[in-house]
């Protein structure tokens, strides 16, 4: 059980590190709580596999509150819920009041994977120079339009 607490504490520490990057107030707590395990895994890679459940029944629900941490964006405090060894919810108990909602959890690679399937009419952030333009996605799109 001690090890479980240790892992949970580590997990909370992991989340706080992420929330420190969460500059805004978070009106989208629900979205975070519903994040699929793969997104949550960014912050808690060790939790599902290493949390021992020797003294817990497999599906016992454990809710733990993290300490209130002050970050440069304000005070952040999270509550996490495990069902068995699986992380099932993250609730933000305290968050900075200023600024707008920002999501910081998705990783670049996951975002990029989802984006590859969409049709595109144009590209932002590319083709600064003629050299790179010749080999760019934007040039291909423009060529398609000229046909």
């Amino acid at each position: 059980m001690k090890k479980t607490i240790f892992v949970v504490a580590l997990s909370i520490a992991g989340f706080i590190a992420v929330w420190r990057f969460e500059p805004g107030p978070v009106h989208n707590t629900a979205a975070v709580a519903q994040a699929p395990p793969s997104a949550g895994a960014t912050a808690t890679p060790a939790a599902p596999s290493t949390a021992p459940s020797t003294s817990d029944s497999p599906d016992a629900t454990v809710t733990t509150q993290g300490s209130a941490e002050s970050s440069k964006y304000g005070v952040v405090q999270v509550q996490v819920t495990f069902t068995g060894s699986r992380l099932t919810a993250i609730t933000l108990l305290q968050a900075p009041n200023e600024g707008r909602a920002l999501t910081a959890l998705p990783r670049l690679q996951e975002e990029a994977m989802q984006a590859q399937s969409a049709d595109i009419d144009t590209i932002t952030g590319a083709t600064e120079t003629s050299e790179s333009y010749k080999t760019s996605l934007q040039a291909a799109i423009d060529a398609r339009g000229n046909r």
Partner: protein
Amino acid sequence: MSTRVEQIMGLPISLDLRDDDDFTEVVDDVFAWFHDVDARFSPFREDSEVSRYDRGELAAAGLSDDLLEVLELCAYYEQLSGGAFRARLPGRGLDPCAVVKGWAVQRAADMLKAEGATTFCLNAGGDVVTAGEPEPGRPWRVGVRHPEQPLAVCAVLESRNGAIATSAAYERGSHILDGRSGTPATGLMSVTVVAGDLVTADALATAAFAMGEEGITWAADRPDCEILIVDDSRRVHRTAGLALAS
């Protein structure tokens, strides 16, 4: 319907116009405008208005209304960004490029609209203004270049009447300097700003990139814009209102 691409200001500028009427004349005017802007505002041309003003050959009273407007915009964003965005760095000449591009492209889009164009996508080196819908019920889909893979996108945004700009260091090296220190900006891989006009989108993207990590909250706090930022840890930060294509 017409498409046109030209290399001006060192940038490929493309126009994808979907209106049925003949807009040949205004499209010619738009590209002539870009050549004109290049001639007047390039700090790389010795005879441009910007260079002559910088060398003291033109008095402030003798400047064109356009350059006065550009200088006013530079001053506004310098103040708004706490000096991170700066058109004149110590020891360097006047370089209003960061404002000129967005301003010139927005002006071109306004020219098209004034002549009745309703459906187009104008892209100048990755800074985009959109109008209308390319197909009924479908917005323009704007891919955001993946900061590490030139031929991949990391997000796709939907846009009807709006503007999108991205600032990053991957194409021209670390060309964006933090005006507060004079050294290349660090902390972010790319900053994309969606706003109602390209003057705002382009200036905010450049300023936030120059600010580094603190640019994330700074950009998110600007009203009437949405952001997508990739930081140096490859984390993606985006505002809740960002219109991602499904």
